[in-house]
């Protein structure tokens, strides 16, 4: 089966000046849409995906055959109701679901980019996706939204294009990657690079796959997406299909088995080099530094109405970091709301069935739209 037949893509021939200094003149952006654009073209919502997400927000992902990554929030009758809104999501550049990324062939060398792919940033991702507005002939989006790295893209989008979205909903994110965030990402990258099959990033041309490294990276990252209480409640010290400890290094505990499984399914759908480049983009994200330490200035010209959402048990992008964004927006009298949702599901809460979150989101979006 041809994978590319299931992926819609847009070829952009407008030059993109990357933060690293390089310019790319021609690149692909893979995207998906849900619902339909109305006549007034005022019902479009651009969703930005997180580190390991893709353009398949809702429904069944045609490549993995699993539910879209934000199926709890986006779909017919859901918080982001696709009967009402036109939802667009693109695979970020650097990604591996059809967009310009390290697994693509470099037209100049006729070889896979691999580690020679340019080091991209969140700013580059957002500037690339801005072309979607032109493609769909949308003057102004109703909303930009996303969680985690998706939230960072929301912040960058509004900063770059202060008048292109009516509302912005950055969820469980930060305006500047913390030392702890960078540390966890570095752990993942080093794990990939330590896999002999990574071969300096050139694994594709040598028919190798650094599955072990990538899967350990995913396992480590997965822990950061959950909360201690959530893990304890779900797994505790429960044993995996055995009555007693085996005095070996097999997966005695359910949590070990669970993490191994998460790692193993991840390598089937994700490219190791993409993981390196995207985590790097996250680490480089510092909207505060971009404006000489004054985050408010990043939003100085904006008329966009913001809703910031955090979760009580999220220790990766904790409430305090989300509140810094709120404070920066209040300092310039911007239009901003903020809620912290009670949940023991950790950073992953935004992806899961957390009714308080989904209901609040739904009502906020619908009321903000009807107040047009």
């Amino acid at each position: 089966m041809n994978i590319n037949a299931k992926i819609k893509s847009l070829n952009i021939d407008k030059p993109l000046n990357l933060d690293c200094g390089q310019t790319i003149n021609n690149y692909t952006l893979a995207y998906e849409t849900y619902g339909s654009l109305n006549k007034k073209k005022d019902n479009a919502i651009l969703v930005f995906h997180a580190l390991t997400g893709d353009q398949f927000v809702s429904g069944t992902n045609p490549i993995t055959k699993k539910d879209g990554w934000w199926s709890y929030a986006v779909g017919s009758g859901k918080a982001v109701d696709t009967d009402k809104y036109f939802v667009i999501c693109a695979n970020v550049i650097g990604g591996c679901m059809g967009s310009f990324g390290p697994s693509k062939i470099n037209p100049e060398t006729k070889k896979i980019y691999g580690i020679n792919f340019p080091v991209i940033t969140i700013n580059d991702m957002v500037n690339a996706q801005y072309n979607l507005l032109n493609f769909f002939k949308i003057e102004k989006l109703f909303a930009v939204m996303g969680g985690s790295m998706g939230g960072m893209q929301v912040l960058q989008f509004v900063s770059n294009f202060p008048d292109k979205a009516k509302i912005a909903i950055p969820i469980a994110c930060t305006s500047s990657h913390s030392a702890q965030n960078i540390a966890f990402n570095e752990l993942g990258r080093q794990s990939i690079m330590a896999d002999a099959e990574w071969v300096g990033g050139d694994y594709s041309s040598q028919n190798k796959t650094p599955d072990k490294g990538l899967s350990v990276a995913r396992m480590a990252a997965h822990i950061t997406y959950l909360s201690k209480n959530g893990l304890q409640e779900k797994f505790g010290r429960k044993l995996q299909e055995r009555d007693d400890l085996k005095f070996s290094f097999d997966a005695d505990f359910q949590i070990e088995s669970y993490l191994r499984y998460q790692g193993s399914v991840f390598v089937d759908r994700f490219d190791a080099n993409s993981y390196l480049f995207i985590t790097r983009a996250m680490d480089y994200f510092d909207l505060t530094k971009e404006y000489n330490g004054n985050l408010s200035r990043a939003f100085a010209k904006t008329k966009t109405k913001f809703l910031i959402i955090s979760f009580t048990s999220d220790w990766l992008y904790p409430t305090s970091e989300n509140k810094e964004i709120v404070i920066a927006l209040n300092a310039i009298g911007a239009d901003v709301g903020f809620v912290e949702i009670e949940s023991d599901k950790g950073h992953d809460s935004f992806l899961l069935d957390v009714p308080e979150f989904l209901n609040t989101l739904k009502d906020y979006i619908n009321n903000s739209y009807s107040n047009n």
Partner: protein
Amino acid sequence: MKKEFYIISDLIENNSRVLDVGCGDGTLMEYLKNNKKIDIRGIEISKNNAQKCIGKGLSVIEGNAEMDLTQFPDKSFDFVILSQTLQAFLNPETVIKELLRIGKKAIVTIPNFGFWRVRLHLLLKGTMPVTKNLPDEWYNTPNLHMCTIKDFYNFCYARNIRLDKSLAFHNGKTSSINEINLNIKNLSAELGIFSIEQ
């Protein structure tokens, strides 16, 4: 909507910028937004209420006014509203200072502990007053700093806070408070409604 909110609304000019501190479920905010074209923001400590407000599409920040007002710039609002919340703060004096810093005017309403029913309750029953405006028992009340209309009046006077409007509220009716009738209003009103500035 309760009568108090209509009175507060009458004190606010159309098309102004307003912050409702302790905005509850957003009832007053919605009214001001829809009827007076107010550019309205809110801050609310209860998660449940903050979520209700957000659900209505209102720009409300879940937070504690005692800590979170510092983030607003000087005179960034035309009016700041504090409805029956002053008594619940650890440090009401600091909060009033903050309200007057961020707002050109502040509208503060207080349940009047000097109201005759309250006084009579304490005098005759000898237990802490429980009334319509003060429904909690002594052991579970959120009210840490109860005051009377006269207390608040004197408080403002001592700090050179200008009382732009001082209203006594009782049985759905309002009347002006001045130096001369202060003792009477302090006895007869359930609620004091003040518009203050500095």
